[in-house]
């Protein structure tokens, strides 16, 4: 199974994702913001990164760009619920444009998440 880094600023959502992924047999690390997420990424080089887009300090778009600079091979899944005038779709389109291989609009169910992971790791 894969080594997955989850970057998500909502603690509860982050824990839920981690638990779901562990149950599905993956090895999981978490970070509660983009800056911490990049630090974790350098230390552990995961197979897959799942990142939220709308986050304080460093948003998911910046995170994806930085990760791709360090390692162009790594697979990334972007997740977003949208904010203010921005729809989840707009965020996810932008993420896909800069290299996220899969995108998921929040809220998604387990089936959708596991399917996206399988497709991303193919």
């Amino acid at each position: 199974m894969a080594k997955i880094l989850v970057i998500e600023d909502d603690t509860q959502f982050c824990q839920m994702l981690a638990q779901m992924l562990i149950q599905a047999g993956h090895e999981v690390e978490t970070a509660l913001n983009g800056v911490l997420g990049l630090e974790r990424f350098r230390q552990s080089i995961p197979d897959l990164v799942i990142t939220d887009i709308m986050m304080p300090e460093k948003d998911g778009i910046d995170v994806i760009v930085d990760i791709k600079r360090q390692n162009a091979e790594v697979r990334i899944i972007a997740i977003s619920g949208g904010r203010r005038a921005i729809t989840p779709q707009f965020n996810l389109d932008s993420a896909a444009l800069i290299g996220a291989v899969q995108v998921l609009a929040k809220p998604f169910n387990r089936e959708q998440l596991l399917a996206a992971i399988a497709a991303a790791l193919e």
Partner: protein
Amino acid sequence: MLSESVRVNTFREDYIRLIKDYWLHGSEEHLIQAAELGKRLVHEELPPEEIGEFQQFALIELKQIAPATSLDEVANRLTPPLIEVLMAYGLAFRQQLQEHYELMVGKHLEQASRLEALGTLSSGIAHDFNTLLGVILGYTEMTLDRIPHDSVARQNLEQVIIAAQRARDLVARILAFGRRDDQKRRTPQRMADSLNECLTMLRSMLPPSVTLHLHIDQPEIWVLGDASELQQLIMDLTVNAIDAMAERGEIHFSLDAITLDADTGQRWPDLSPGDYVRFRIRDTGCGVSPQIANRIFEPFFTTKDVGEGTGLGLSVVYGIVKRMGGAIRLNSEPGQPGAEFEILCPRYAGSEP
């Protein structure tokens, strides 16, 4: 409130007294009083024709006081106070009109900015809701794994999932209200096509007690918009009309093209002069009371009972029209049945997509 004829008589007596005093003393003071009278006529909402009547009566009275003077001569000498009354009347009338118009525009702008603030607010919290719903869905699904298949607990948790999915759809609609221009999705749409498609669908869904009438003045008019949003706009307005009529009555849809200039544009303070597509939908329902007329486009505002409506329909319509660069107004006379929504959207000049 005095009846109009009593008020007219009081003014006529005041005017004749004034004219007599002017005839006898001819002072500047009487001309000032004449101007005051003219202003009062406007505030009492008496029509200008009455002034002519007053003058006729005054002439007859004065001819009796001064029988030796010819009628022409009397009329000549009474011209200055008449001019004062007419000028004051005209100025006061114009001022009243302007105040009325400014008040109308002010109310409209206030409503527009309030709606914008609410839109921003509601879509701001939508993101957090999506995340929270994700947590609810995720943990519920994981818990389901550990529960026997045909247990009550399982059925209950499945209802939690269904409710969370419904909440997700609701959030998507809130986001649709707050969304700004999304240029890439806007393509030329022939309004007549959107209307025909929706009406075909609606006719198959509605009870026979609701009849739909379509009046298309010009089929070849186009707007820039999103096909599904246009469809939602028509459907939401229709559902609103059906609710207002308690599912019994007539709905009239009409489509034409109009041009706004400085004059006709006064009804549409948010729009600049130019060519517009006008879409109107009129029902034979209960109408809209003035108390709620300026709140109906607010998200979550509803006159339906709790649980019957989300109160998002008309706010979504408002958002769609705004994004198309258009404006919407409600035409509903207090005390009159039925309401009409009138929508203007910029006319797309090209005829082909």
